[in-house]
């Protein structure tokens, strides 16, 4: 209940800003709605942008249940996209199995990128927040390097990018959305499963979990790998479903935004779906606002930030009052 109050308050703050700066609130809302959902094209844009957010957020939510905070979505997405590119630019990319192979490669790439921070955490207790963050930079550098060397498009382009994927490897439109929905459904099941509950126990009273056979190493490593795989899959979706080739902007901040979506959705699959669409709509609809009222499209980013703040407050408040489930 309180959660929604904070969200509404967040939107109210934005509305207030718009009104105080002399903006036309009704026009802005209409413009936003049109920009995000008004036409089939705009709606599709919004959903396509929401899809990788959902994937990353679902992964993050798994790790959060074991109190593992992974901020490595960016790097894992990149790693997934690189792995998928390598596989899909090989003869496998033209085979009828290109889609599953690409997905597999993406997930594996993301998981491998999460393995290192995972091992450092389990072995030496190095904070996963630090290491996953560092791995983001590593991945970005690796991407830039590969795009200038072995993965570079031989056919002349000046920008560092790979060759286009073969048609068989491209993910046709509704499929990615179906994939996100299927994974969300799986996540709904998982969050109600015994393993998820054991992770809760692990997160709050480790010795009780260990007595139930939940080893610290396995619990943390497994959730890190799952969240990495989910982000890697998002990398593949972005690659095969949107860009069609690997370039420097493949992750485009989605790894971080996915984390925000996980927090907005309080780590639950249903709310994550809603949060991802709202979050995506704030980006896609912002242009509509600018178009309709002249308010700069940056208002979308401002709103995202205010919402994050509101949610952080709501989460803190509910912690203090002691939550029960």
């Amino acid at each position, binding site marked *: 209940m309180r959660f929604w109050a904070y969200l509404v308050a967040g939107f109210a703050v934005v509305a207030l800003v718009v009104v105080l700066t002399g903006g036309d609130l009704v026009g802005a809302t209409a413009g936003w709605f049109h920009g995000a959902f008004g036409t089939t094209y705009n709606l599709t844009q919004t959903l396509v942008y929401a899809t990788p957010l959902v994937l990353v957020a679902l992964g993050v939510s798994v790790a959060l249940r074991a109190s593992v905070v992974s901020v490595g979505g960016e790097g894992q997405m990149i790693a997934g996209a690189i792995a998928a590119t390598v596989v899909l630019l090989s003869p496998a990319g033209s085979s009828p199995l290109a889609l599953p192979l690409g997905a597999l490669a993406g997930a594996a790439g993301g998981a491998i990128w999460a393995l290192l921070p995972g091992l450092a955490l389990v072995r030496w207790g190095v904070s996963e927040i630090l290491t996953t963050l560092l791995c983001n930079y590593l991945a970005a550098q690796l991407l830039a390097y590969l795009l200038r060397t072995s993965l570079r498009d031989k056919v002349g382009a000046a920008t560092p990018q790979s060759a286009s994927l073969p048609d068989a490897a491209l993910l046709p439109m509704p499929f990615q959305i179906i994939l996100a929905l299927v994974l969300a459904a799986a996540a709904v*099941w998982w969050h*109600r*499963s*015994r*393993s998820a*509950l*054991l992770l*809760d*126990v692990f997160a*709050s*009273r480790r*010795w*009780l979990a260990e*007595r*139930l*056979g939940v080893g610290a190493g396995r619990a943390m490593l497994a959730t890190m790998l799952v969240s990495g795989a989910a982000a890697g899959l998002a990398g593949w979706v972005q690659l095969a479903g949107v860009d069609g080739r690997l370039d420097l902007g493949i992750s485009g901040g989605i790894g971080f935004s996915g984390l925000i979506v996980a927090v907005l959705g309080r780590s639950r699959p249903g709310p994550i779906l809603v949060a991802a669409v709202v979050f995506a709509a704030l980006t896609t609809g912002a242009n509509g606002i600018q178009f309709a009222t002249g308010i700069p499209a940056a208002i979308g980013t401002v709103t995202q930030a205010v919402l994050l703040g509101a949610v952080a407050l709501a989460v803190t408040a509910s912690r203090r009052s*002691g*939550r*029960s*489930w």
Partner: protein
Amino acid sequence: MTVLELCSASRRFPRVQALDRVDLAVRPGEVHALLGENGAGKSTAIRILAGLDHPDPGEVRLDGRAVRFASRTDALRHGIGLVPQTESLVGELTLAENLALAEPHRVVRRRAASRRLREAATTVGVAVDPDVRTRDLGRGQRQLAELVLALAQDARVLLLDEPTAALGPYETRDMFTRLRALAAAGVAVLFITHRLAEVRAVADTVTVLAHGRVAWSGAGSDVDDATLIRTMVGDLPDTPTREPRTAIGAPVLRLAAVSADCGDPIHDLSLDVHAGEVVGVLGVAGNGQRALAEVAAGRVRPAGGTRTETGSVAYVPETRLDGLLPGRAVRWSAVVSRLREPRFARRGVVDRGAVTRFATDLLARHDVRPPDPGLPVLTLSGGNQQKLLVGRELDNGPAAAVLHGPTQGLDVRSAKEILSEIARAAAGGTGVLLVSADPGEVREVADRVVVLSGGRVVGEFPAADFDDALVRRLTAGGDE
């Protein structure tokens, strides 16, 4: 002349009327004991006086004027110090840092804080080192530390919520001597206890709460023990006559030359617990009890030596919330050690219905009140949390059980029931290691007693030879 009082104070929680028009007054120079069964409303009353909660309706009066403290810090600024039932120290920090944290200065004055704490500790005559991480102190020590913390901030009213629950008789007696001295110097003391001997030793005035109402109040000298017990918990069940246990079997838990360090280290300690046997561990707090319990329970791997277990090992840690999932609904804490059983999941998904049924039954069998599996653990009274924890751990006939202060915070009746439960578990073949600050309960239920001092076993004797003087000599805890 009263300094702090509750005037017709009520407090309702969703499931219970915790306080119902309660009047309670503390006076300078007086030690006031607050008694009552588990869940009677004692902590609620004290929390209201300390500014952690508010009466609804009702009033708190300070020096005769109605006040409304904004927080515990606010109350402390008015000279009201609290030692809460659930510790409130930041475990990662030292006591001095905790004090610095509580003060209004922006700069942390560690050295000054440390000095003031040492002074305060001397006034109450407790040995608390202000410069160790409070996490490394035993539970009794941490409560003494909170007392010192309140005194270092010049409290003129001390509100103590079961300050002696984790202390043995010698430490308790020392503390009472100092409380009397403080009272003589004009401090008002209100303390909660479940032990009548303590009331007799130190209290001038007694108030008994029952179901949120004042059931008796007056001078301690005006009332006898039997009346107090009857007002608190009704008639007591007879103490079950002790049958000597014949069926003591093979060892179920063996410690061979183990060493470990959990704040108070143990060295080269060897100890076997046999099936069907209760081994009592006595000693002055801080002599390795915690390390022994943690190692025996398998929660801490010993730095040296070996530990062998033959089956499941139950564990009741000294700090009860350690063994529960606080903030979550009671049902999860009730079921947590048995989550692997197939009946609690259907096709991998947790079966809430089965969990709730199991929890409801467990709460009823162990008299946890209110018996509602949906309430957050933190809303249970301290004693009911304890019953939940001990009940859960002994419920399943474990091969061995390590119980550290299992009757802490329990009222007379519940304490008796837990002791019978321990005896029943042993009769059923469980090997029990009972680490306790209370020689009385060890005498009542143990077959064999070991005495711990400086992290080593310094004495061992059959319970039949139990003798206070012997224990005192072995622990060097008495100062006479």
